[in-house]
């Protein structure tokens, strides 16, 4: 399927209220098709030319009991005519499909925002399941918002009456009915969604296809003909000024999968990706398993340790070994990562972080594995740590991780998180052929070969494929002689090898881009230093503050270990350095340890991303103090 269409920008509606950007949130039962609805709205908004950011917010339970608060699944999208950096602090419009969704999501709507409620699902049973002892629509407890009661269930049943579907199947179309209504609210074209429905269902279940399209159209028609609120004629959100070119949407999971496949092509080397299922890291394996034609072999291992070891075995045999997990799995891989450091083999490890400790909150985001990444192994065991700052940056950083791993014969850990993994954004599709090629030189010359002789520039040892004539050799996790690789317990040799392992990782700092300032002056009163998925909220907070004349700078790290060589001098240019991160101050501690300066931590560990307002308030309080 390859559908490219050209936009006609500026297709507004005279009576519509103009909005620079808007945040819409859908919330309902896990089985209500909320993520599908959000995904379709994302496509429609992208096709309308908006910049956007999405955030699926779903429970770990697959289908929790119907109607319960812990079974609520939500999807939020922020879209607009300006650059969009986050999925939005609070929603302008919420569609709540049941009382549980209303109860858990109303507080995420802006004061004065609109809440569309499916009153058909507000019977005594549903209210009781959500823990209401009365109907909140009957009192003034929702006075902060404009409540739009619509019997979506009944209207959906009417709309699909001719389809021949039974009642329960017919009711499953109500998400499309609501989507039709929201499409009308924002002047979205519903044709691509109708087309998608037909493509997905028409062959196997024509009645389902027809019913869903009918529901979509009915919801749209309802918006056109009924006045939802007095004087409300919908919103007009203009297209954004995006750089020209061909776009698609991309999640962090997609970014890694596509980036790894691109790296296999750019290195002209086979790749073996071994992983064990874990939330929220699994989408990378799900995507890569389809890419066997592109030089990627995938392996679902028996456990996390095996996944790391399969990748290491593949690297030793001359492929690019990659493994992927989330924090608990990375903990299990720890010993194997030490082997890769000791044997000096290339390895890429992707950690899609989630809230810990232990099982923690599998579907909630956090950045609390930084210490684990940099220091979390036995022995002095340095490796390289990178952090993408957005879903599309995962593509870039996957390639960068492979580049460093094969050039320095070292494991590289990439720290993503649950937010980046599942969030999506529009992506200007790059031309992979124009990216720098990363040819890998396997040693084949037998004369003078020593397994641990090093390249004087990178300190990397040569990569040799087993099977190469005349180069048979043995390596292992026991300390190795600095030249021959034979077992060595020699005291001086261990000092030399420990120093080499550190120096090699330190040298990567010379081979990465110097740190830049994302926004704001190079010297001043306050700099915010972030990493990973906090990029969006910090960026928006800083641009808002700067628009008000507040002097603040934003520095965002993508290289966490080694740190960029110029970072110390850069930070010294600020009176105050504030480090927002979704942990209790891990980057802040690392920076303090490295530069011996009293940097300040701004910590948040709720499993939810930072809100822009939280960062703005933190900056204001520091500058007013």
């Amino acid at each position, binding site marked *: 399927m390859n559908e490219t*269409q*050209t936009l006609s920008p500026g297709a507004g509606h005279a009576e519509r209220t103009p909005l620079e950007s808007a945040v819409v949130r859908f919330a309902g039962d896990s089985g209500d098709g909320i993520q599908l609805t959000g995904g379709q709205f994302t496509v429609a908004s992208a096709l309308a030319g908006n910049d956007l950011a999405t955030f699926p917010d779903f429970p770990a339970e697959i289908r929790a009991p119907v109607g319960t608060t812990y079974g609520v699944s939500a999807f939020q999208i922020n879209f607009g005519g300006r650059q969009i950096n986050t999925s939005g602090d609070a929603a302008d419009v919420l569609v709540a499909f049941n009382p549980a969704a209303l109860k858990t999501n109303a507080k995420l709507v802006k004061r004065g925002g609109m809440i569309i409620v499916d009153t058909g699902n507000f019977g005594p049973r549903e209210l009781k399941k959500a823990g209401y002892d009365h109907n909140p629509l009957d009192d003034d407890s929702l006075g902060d918002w404009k409540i739009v009661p619509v019997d979506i269930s009944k209207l959906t049943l009417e709309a699909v009456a001719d389809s021949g579907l039974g009642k329960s199947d017919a009711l499953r179309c109500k998400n499309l009915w609501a989507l039709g209504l929201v499409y009308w609210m924002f002047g979205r074209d519903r044709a691509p969604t109708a087309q998608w429905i037909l493509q997905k269902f028409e062959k196997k279940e024509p009645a389902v296809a027809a019913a869903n399209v009918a529901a979509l159209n009915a919801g749209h028609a309802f918006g056109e003909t009924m006045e939802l609120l007095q004087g409300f004629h919908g919103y007009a959100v203009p297209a954004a000024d995006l750089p020209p*070119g061909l776009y698609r949407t991309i999640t962090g999971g997609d970014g890694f999968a596509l980036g790894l496949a691109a790296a296999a092509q750019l290195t002209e080397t086979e790749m073996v990706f071994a992983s064990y299922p874990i939330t929220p890291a699994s989408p990378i394996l799900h995507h890569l398993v389809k890419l066997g034609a592109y030089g990627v072999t995938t392996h679902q291992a028996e456990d996390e340790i095996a996944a790391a070891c399969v990748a290491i075995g*593949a690297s030793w045999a001359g492929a690019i070994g990659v493994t992927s997990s989330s924090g608990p799995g990375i903990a299990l891989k720890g010993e194997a990562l030490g082997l890769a450091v000791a044997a000096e083999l290339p390895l890429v490890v992707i950690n899609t972080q989630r809230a810990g400790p232990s099982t923690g909150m599998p579907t909630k985001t956090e950045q609390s594995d930084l210490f684990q990444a940099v220091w979390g192994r036995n022995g002095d065991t340095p490796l390289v740590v990178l952090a993408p700052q957005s879903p599309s940056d995962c593509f870039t950083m996957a390639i960068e991780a492979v580049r460093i791993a094969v050039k320095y014969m070292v494991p590289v850990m990439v720290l993503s998180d649950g937010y980046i993994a599942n969030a999506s954004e529009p992506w200007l599709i790059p031309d992979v052929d124009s990216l720098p090629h990363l040819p890998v030189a396997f040693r084949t010359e037998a004369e003078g070969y020593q397994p641990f002789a090093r390249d004087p520039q990178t300190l990397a040892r040569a990569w040799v494929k087993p*099977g190469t004539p005349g180069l048979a050799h043995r390596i292992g996790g026991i300390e190795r002689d600095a030249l021959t690789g034979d077992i060595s317990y020699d005291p001086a040799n261990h000092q030399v090898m420990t120093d080499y392992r550190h120096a090699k990782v330190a040298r990567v700092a010379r081979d990465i881009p110097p740190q830049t300032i994302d926004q704001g002056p190079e010297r001043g009163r306050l700099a915010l230093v972030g990493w990973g998925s906090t990029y969006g909220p910090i960026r928006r907070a800083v641009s808002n503050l700067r628009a008000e004349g507040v002097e603040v700078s934003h520095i965002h790290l993508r290289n966490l270990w080694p740190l960029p060589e110029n970072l110390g001098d850069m930070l010294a240019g600020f009176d105050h350095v504030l480090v927002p991160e979704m942990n209790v101050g891990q980057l802040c501690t690392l920076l303090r340890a490295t530069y011996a300066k009293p940097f300040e931590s701004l910590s948040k560990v709720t499993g939810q991303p930072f809100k822009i307002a939280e960062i703005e308030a933190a900056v204001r309080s520091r500058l007013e103090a």
Partner: protein
Amino acid sequence: MNAPTSPQKLTVKDFATDQDVRWCPGCGDYAILKAVQKTLADLGADKDKTVFVSGIGCSSRFPYYMETYGFHTIHGRAPAIATGVKLANPELDVWIVTGDGDGLSIGGNHLMHAIRRNIDCQILLFNNEIYGLTKGQASPTSHLGTRSSTTPNGSTDAPLEPIKVALGAGARFVARTADKWIKEMPDVLKAARSHRGTAFVEILQNCIVYNDQVFAGFTGKEAQEGSFLHVEHGKPLLFGAGRAKGLRVKPGTFKLEVVTVGEGGVTEADLLVHDKTDPVLAGLLAAMRGPHFPIAFGVLYDDPAESHEAAVAAHKADQKARTPDVSINALLKRGRTWMVEGPKA
């Protein structure tokens, strides 16, 4: 990987490295090392295409002494590392060397999954029923009552039978040999190497320091008559002095029984004939224990099936056949895309 690749005759020395062998004097590992080197020399194996992967323990030092490619990895993980090696390069001849602690305790999960996937490799499990390198603790194969530094009153945990574990995991080749069967071992190893898929070989190996003589009754020259049986495909299961004893199915049961040919009207025609493609018989033979039964040695089961690597290669070939353009640029444009024409005037 069966075809000899070297024109000149290779010897044991061609597969020995310059490293000092660091096993205890008298350790059974020396005999196994010799037998493996002899096997590869006899077969004219290409040492550059031969790979030894090991975990941790006395047995796992093995790769350092083989003049081939070798990777001494971490405790229990050799089967997983070897799986990665075979995924990256299915052409390599991969040998996994492990022990009873490495393979059945800390690495039991990987052993099981390498076997059930049918990775094309040889797994040599040196079973000495004890932890040697950590100084003599009971292992998962220590028989009941084994006195060790962690079981001073005798082990109370039921031991695992390695071959039954392998069969339970779906092994398509299982064999048993012993350090003291020096003459027989290379034949077992050659059969393992010619098997496509995982070939699991249990090698009973004497730990001279911590569990000496544990197999003395039924291996090597000191073995008592009737305590062991070497199986041969297609031959009746005969053993003991003058090969007078044999195995048959006890009438009316699923059990084996030992009979003497010529006694009670038993003739050779009544005996079981070894069929290496029969997994049920393999299980019965593997489970035999003294004093009432002989210990079975040789290739107990050999019935190949498609290897994991072959299945993976077929799957990838299929994906390739269905992908007309394998460039990443084409991949990135798959699915829904849209064109943005540039900034508004």
